[in-house]
């Protein structure tokens, strides 16, 4: 058992670290496929990555129901750390979550099980924060859509392997859909619901 | 040669200096103190606290002083300050039945348990300007008597015991109370949000809306079941203590309207309710609020909503005087970029109109 005092710290400078993390995430969301860096300003409980921890401290609070996958939920440190630093309520029902933290993408639930928003309020959807192996090596993905000047090339090592196939759901559902933030250590890439994959390399 | 207008920064500074000077007025006249405002312009303070959504007499008095007595400006100052305050949670519901009543009147029964208490009121004063008040007036000491220990149950509760009035709709146990200052408002809105909107709403707007229901635009046959003014205790349950901690007492005015009855195949006929509540002594506000609250319940009570006061999008979107004054007054800001675009269009349309007329005119002249 870890006591609160032994948990990794939150942001040393709450205001400025949250601002700089947000700008990285905002830039990532505005320019899908581009790799943005988060300046790590906080500790992170295993198996949470530094980037994930910074995003949690920046965007989560009492108003954001949070769903954790088994990998995250089995760590009492993660649960305690999130409760102590963000106050976000952890929910069992993924369809009401504002955010979902995915530690093990290989067993990512079907995307339909998350909140997809409604036609009137498509913003009421879950944002997936998916930890991946790498955002600078692995397969190539060619992406198009708003925020991208022509095409963007993303090189990444992602589980689930069929993530982009699954995200075809966004095409059919738009404006409803799922927005994804990929995290590898301090690197983030966002795949909002408007992004389309045109080709995949090896 | 033309030189573009500049130097706005200095103009702003100078304007603010002049404003401060005008605010103070003639400096040979003693400066107003916050106590004076709070004590002698108490109803202004009450209104600013209510519509500013912040119970703090001293800050409200400061806002009134800073706003040169412009109450909507003062309400705005208080709201802007309130928006920066941390939120610790919601208090326990206050029990207005246990109010230490200073004034309490009912128009539905001649006498009620605990009695009718006229209290401090303008009612039945003759509205004659009183020169004696102009200076150095010392009022007589108020009449006193043994404080009554009789309970003063709410008139609506008395009616409720016999089932003559609908039971007050209860929220689910543990349901959180909506807060339109923390969450964006969506329509249709539940009654908690409607009441919050009305409590913050402009007194003049609510007065006109309430009045319109009396004149037939969504008539709902109101009786002033009870209006009471006095102090109630506020309690707060902090998560870590687990029990209610008293925070202090606040002055409130509550109005319960008893309105036209309803009934259905499954429910016996009974009166319906309209509710008004405000900080301090604010009778006009709470009565208007109760009328409008009842009007806005049209949907829930299966009535046809045809009048403005029954239209929740209309009422709730226009009741807030801080929003309204901002947008009306923003017309003072420069719009010359848009105006230029309109001018261009208008000139083009006029030219086309003249050109189209011209051949006709020439034809007429030739005939």
């Amino acid at each position, binding site marked *: 058992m870890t006591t609160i005092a032994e948990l990794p710290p939150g942001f040393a400078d709450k*205001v400025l670290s*949250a*601002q700089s993390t*947000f*700008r990285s995430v*905002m830039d990532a*969301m*505005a*320019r899908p496929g581009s790799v943005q860096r988060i300046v790590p300003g906080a500790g992170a409980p295993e198996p949470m990555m530094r980037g994930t921890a910074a995003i949690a401290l*920046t*965007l989560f*609070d009492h108003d954001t129901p949070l769903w954790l996958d088994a990998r995250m939920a089995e760590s009492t440190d993660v649960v305690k750390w999130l409760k102590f630093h963000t106050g976000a309520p952890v929910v069992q029902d993924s369809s009401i979550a504002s955010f979902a933290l995915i530690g093990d993408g290989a067993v990512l639930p079907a995307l339909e099980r998350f909140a997809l928003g409604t036609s*009137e309020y*498509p*913003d009421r959807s879950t*944002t997936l924060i998916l930890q991946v192996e790498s955002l600078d090596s692995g397969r190539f993905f060619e992406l198009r859509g*708003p*925020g991208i000047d022509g095409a963007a090339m993303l090189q990444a090592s992602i589980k689930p392997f069929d993530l982009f196939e699954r995200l075809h759901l966004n095409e059919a559902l738009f404006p409803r859909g799922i*927005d994804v933030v990929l995290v590898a250590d301090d690197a983030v890439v966002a795949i909002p619901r*408007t992004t389309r994959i045109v080709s995949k390399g090896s | 040669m*033309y*030189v*573009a*207008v*500049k*130097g706005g920064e*200095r*103009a*702003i500074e100078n304007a603010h200096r002049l404003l401060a000077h005008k605010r103070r007025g003639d400096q040979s006249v003693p400066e107003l103190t916050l106590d004076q405002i709070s004590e002698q312009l108490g109803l202004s303070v009450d209104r600013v606290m209510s519509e500013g959504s912040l119970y703090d007499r001293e*800050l409200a008095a*400061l806002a009134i002083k800073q706003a040169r007595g412009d109450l909507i400006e003062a309400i*705005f100052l208080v709201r*802007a*300050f309130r*928006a*920066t*305050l941390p939120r610790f949670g919601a208090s326990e519901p206050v029990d207005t039945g246990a109010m230490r009543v200073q004034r309490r009147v009912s128009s539905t029964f001649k006498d009620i348990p605990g009695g009718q208490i006229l209290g401090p009121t303008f009612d039945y004063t003759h509205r004659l300007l009183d020169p004696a008040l102009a200076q150095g007036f010392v009022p007589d000491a108020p009449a006193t008597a043994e404080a009554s220990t009789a309970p003063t149950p709410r008139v609506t509760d008395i009616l409720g015991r016999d089932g003559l009035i609908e039971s007050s709709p209860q929220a689910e146990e543990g349901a959180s109370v909506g807060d339109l200052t923390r969450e*964006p408002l969506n*329509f*249709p809105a539940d009654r908690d949000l409607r009441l919050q909107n009305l409590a913050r709403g402009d007194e003049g707007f609510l007065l006109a809306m309430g009045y319109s229901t009396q004149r037939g635009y969504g008539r709902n046959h109101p009786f002033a079941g009870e209006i009471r003014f006095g102090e109630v205790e506020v309690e707060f349950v902090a998560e870590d203590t687990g029990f209610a901690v008293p925070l202090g007492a606040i002055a409130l005015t509550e109005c319960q309207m008893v309105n036209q009855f309803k009934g259905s195949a499954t429910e016996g006929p009974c009166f319906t309710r309209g509710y008004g509540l405000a900080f301090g002594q604010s009778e006009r506000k709470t009565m208007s609020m109760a009328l409008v609250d009842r009007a806005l319940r049209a949907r829930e009570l299966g009535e046809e909503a045809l009048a403005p006061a029954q239209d929740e999008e209309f009422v709730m979107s226009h009741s807030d005087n*801080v*929003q309204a*004054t*901002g*947008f*009306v*007054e*923003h017309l003072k*800001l*420069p*719009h*010359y*970029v*848009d105006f*230029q*675009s309109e*001018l*261009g*269009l208008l000139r083009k*349309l006029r030219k086309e109109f003249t050109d189209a007329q011209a051949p006709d005119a020439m034809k007429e002249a030739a005939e």
Partner: protein
Amino acid sequence: MNAPAYNFAYLDEQTKRMIRRAILKAIAIPGYQVPFASREMPMPYGWGTGGVQVTAAILGPQDVLKVIDQGSDDTTNAISIRKFFAKTAGVATTTATEEATVIQTRHRIPEATLNENQVLVYQVPIPEPLRFLEPRETETRRMHALAEYGLMHVKLYEDIARFGHIATAYAYPVKVNARYVMDPSPTPKFDNPKMDNCPALQLFGAGREKRIYAIPPYTQVVSLDFEDHPFEPYRFNAPCALCAAENSYLDEIVTDDKGGRMFVCSDTDYCEGRQAAGHHGSLSAAPYKEKAQEASNG
């Protein structure tokens, strides 16, 4: 009395988180209006509270802020907002478009092409493009949900039937990413083409109406029109009297009461830049002087 103490960029952190979440959803759904719990700001509703809240939520100490109103850095409201952020966030401010990382604007898009490192924040009075056709929020929301925009086309077509032209000169509706019809805020329609495929992120804040929306960079933005009545930007046909620019949006200045008028760039930074680079119009005061201008308003 509770003595006021304010956070970096004025807003408390909880409010910033709420606004930041709304901004991310707005970017993910281009042109869709995300409801947010707008706060009372220390300036009136209708005077830029939406833009100010968006700016306050994104601004950091590294940013360089530019604020314009009617294209000008020197209009009183622009000065007031710029001072507000200089005071509460201590950020550097500028009037030069190319130096700014965050530009807050009311009613104009700068003439200079924006770049990828910039965010343009619009102040929006009425975010709902369908509001004047249908006052009810419940109805307009349904129309957006179904992408049912026939009413808007009918309105524009009625204009043509009546006036021979689409009679909308500013706040001219656009369609974003071929899905949402969006109000570009009351910018003159001259500026509409600048929104299309813009390298900068565009964020829109409506404080009183409690909505945030966005156009991501490099996103298609099309002004609504008809094949036989294509969209045409309006500009008074004259060069700027100060810098001789032929393609900037112009303010009309009435110089006397006998019909005298002149036309100068509404984007003052653009105009000054051109004058400094040696471009002179028919009425320019050459060499360009700061001092003389202050005197006219002191």
